[in-house]
């Protein structure tokens, strides 16, 4: 296999891991006002992802940096072309990351309420905008002969892309809900399953429409399989959630996310940024780094990615216990300094 193809698969793998993992982080954040009716419940929700959200977010950083290393032209065109949406994602992720760390640092309801809003918007905005971004990548955007984005912000907000954004948002809400049902006990768990029941129907509707359009307009024969698999994942979630099989429900949303992202990347290949202007499009060939760089990066990725997967997996094992309101310690005592 060509190294450029290998790296296309690696990039796809990094994004898939990111959406699988941070997908439920975003979902938990978006469900904060819905499932967290008081402060203790909100802390239950946040603490299900407390030890892991940061490690999950690194998949995004590495996906971006690996794109820079393996396909510099793709990196340059994508991030300069999708400038303002990406800026919004970065601002949202900054606020959200700080919010997790700082919300418990003052025993003041207004302080916490502000950070809770930051977590909600900081999760909703990226969840939506990632869908918009990836739909646009698959659909193609106007690129000039030097691969620079030649469209406007409005061009990125086309109906297909907005449907993509809606799909990722609902999918992540669902993924977060089944994750919470799996990771909590007590009332939060019951409520999370109830939310999942509604969300799975919405996900089938939005995701089904989005993948069907993707398939018809950009698909390949093989993407019928991945798109169909994604739909089957959602059906598995629906059935498992009704029977209270939370592990299977989570496996279903996980499979749906993995296969939906696989559908997009398979539909894209061998393009990486198709152009709607006929020329100026980027492919795995004309966007790639030199063979020497790709070879070095292949060795590095082959050795270290499995190690990362092992220790991240171990983290989930360490924190495998369900959390309920009874596990949440009292807010830290406010020790006033003696002057």
């Amino acid at each position, binding site marked *: 296999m060509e190294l450029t193809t290998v790296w296309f698969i690696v990039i796809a793998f990094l994004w898939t891991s990111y959406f699988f993992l941070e997908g439920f982080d975003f979902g938990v954040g978006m469900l904060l006002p819905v499932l967290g009716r008081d402060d203790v419940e909100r*802390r239950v929700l*946040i*603490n299900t992802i*407390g*030890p892991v959200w*940061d*490690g999950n*977010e*690194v998949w995004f*950083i*590495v996906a*971006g*940096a*690996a*794109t*820079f*290393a393996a*396909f*510099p*032209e793709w*990196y*340059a*065109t*994508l*991030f*300069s072309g999708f*400038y303002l949406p990406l*800026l919004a994602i970065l*601002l949202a*992720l*900054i*606020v959200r*990351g*700080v919010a997790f*760390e*700082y*919300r*418990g*640092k*003052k025993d003041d309801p207004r302080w916490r309420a502000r950070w809770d809003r930051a977590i909600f918007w900081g999760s909703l905005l990226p969840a939506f905008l990632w869908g918009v971004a990836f739909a646009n990548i698959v659909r193609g955007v106007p690129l000039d002969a030097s691969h620079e984005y030649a469209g406007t912000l409005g061009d990125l907000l086309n109906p297909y892309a907005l449907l993509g954004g809606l799909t990722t948002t609902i999918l992540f809400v669902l993924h977060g809900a089944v994750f919470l049902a799996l990771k909590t006990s007590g009332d939060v768990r019951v409520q999370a399953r109830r939310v999942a029941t509604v969300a799975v129907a919405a996900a089938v509707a939005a995701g089904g429409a989005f993948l069907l359009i993707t398939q018809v307009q950009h698909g390949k024969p093989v993407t019928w399989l991945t798109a169909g698999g994604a739909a089957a994942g959602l059906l598995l979630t629906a059935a498992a959630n009704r029977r209270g099989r939370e592990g299977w429900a989570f496996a279903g949303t996980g499979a749906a996310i993995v296969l939906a992202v696989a559908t997009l990347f398979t539909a894209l290949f061998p393009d990486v940024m198709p152009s709607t202007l006929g020329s100026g499009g980027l492919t795995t060939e004309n966007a790639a*780094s030199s063979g*020497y*760089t790709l070879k*070095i*990066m292949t060795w*590095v*990725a082959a050795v*270290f*990615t499995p190690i*990362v997967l092992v*220790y*991240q997996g171990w*983290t989930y094992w360490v924190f495998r216990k369900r959390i309920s309101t*009874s*596990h949440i*310690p009292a807010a830290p005592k406010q*020790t*006033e*300094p*003696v002057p």
Partner: protein
Amino acid sequence: MDSVDIARWQFGITTVYHFFFVPLTIGLSALVAGLETAWLRTGKTRYLRATKFWGKLFLINFAMGIVTGIVQEFQFGMNWSDYSRFVGDIFGAPLAIEGLLAFFVESTFLGLWIFGWDRLNAKLHNACIWLVHIGTLLSAYFILAANSWMQHPVGYRVDHETGRAVLTDFWAVLTNSTQLVAFPHTITAAFVTGGLFMAGVSAWHLARRKNIEVFRPSLKLALVVTAIASIGVAITGDVQGKVMTDQQPMKMAAAEALYETEQPASFSLFTVGTLDGDEEIFGIKVPRVLSFLATGTFDGEVKGINDVQAAEEARYGPGDYRPNIPVAYWNFRIMVGVGILTALVSLAGLWLLRRGRLPANPWVYRIGVLSLALPFIGNSAGWIFTEMGRQPWSVFGVLKTSASVSPGVSPASMLISVISLTALYGVLMVIEAGLMLKYAKAGPPSEDEVLPPPPSDSDSDSDERSLAFAY
């Protein structure tokens, strides 16, 4: 302002800001890890209390380091797409390796350390924070390798067909002579930063004679680390000066505002130049010192700005190859001055603390607290000097900053970006400083608070027990 200026302002603001948190993370992670190890080795509760106290301040700082780091990873593509296209073959690899080797380790094991007090056995728990520290060092190595390549590009050729730089020797990039001095210089400066932070906060508490059993050992540890690291900063900085004179003569000349070539060259303590920056009006000088700094001998020749300008014009074609001279000149002085002060403060502090002493004079502690600011000033000045001193190049001798910016991004978009990031960073700085102050003043937890709860009778009890730490 055109888009180059806006993009440069954003890079400067976001990078200096990010680098408030980075060196503190590097230095403090090692100190916290060391304190936890001390607790494991000796079983003395005061070390556990110190670990929890400094650990909390470390985490408040770390959160900001992470989130501001996200911008660093992506603004190359957003604001500097032509740069990214040109250097991607070389520059992207260390960034990706940094993410894969360092960021995953840092974020994952920090999560385990924060939440794992009751889930991991004590040694494994301590190993987690040591791994975080190793992650910070790895991260520093790869990002500095990338930066060193911009200062002194090696291991590449420019492909004439595509007009892009192509990697030819990755090992050369990783062992760039510039990198081999920049890395120890940055790391020792990070230990000075962690050290003086710990010293400053400890001094505040010791002035009030509070929690002496925690803060005296903390202060002692901090000052020993700072003193050793300060000497390291000076030695590596000295070597770096000579490497820089050789590789970027303009930067050394600008650092000195040395307009005409001198042999031997004197070190200027204070220089005022004409407004257009072409010549010097007035200056106070120490003879021969610059020769020594730049070449290692007291009668070496140091090239002046005007000679280097002529030489670079001859080599790279007509153009202005001078950086902003006052910025380079003053930041170089601030950096060196801070370096000397940190060494003096730490050595004086160790002398005052000798053989169990705890000085009574309140000024000792006031100076200790104020010194906390020094490394942050010095780190910023050092980076502003080295980055602005490289101008007009983004990759020295190969690619100009003016040719690096994204051609397709409008100045308006860039303005929205720099304004929103600066505003957000400003707000976060106020919040962060407030929390840091609050938790620094609150002092360490008491002995009862840090000791683990008594072992429970049955497993079901432990299931119901509340988490050792929760957000």
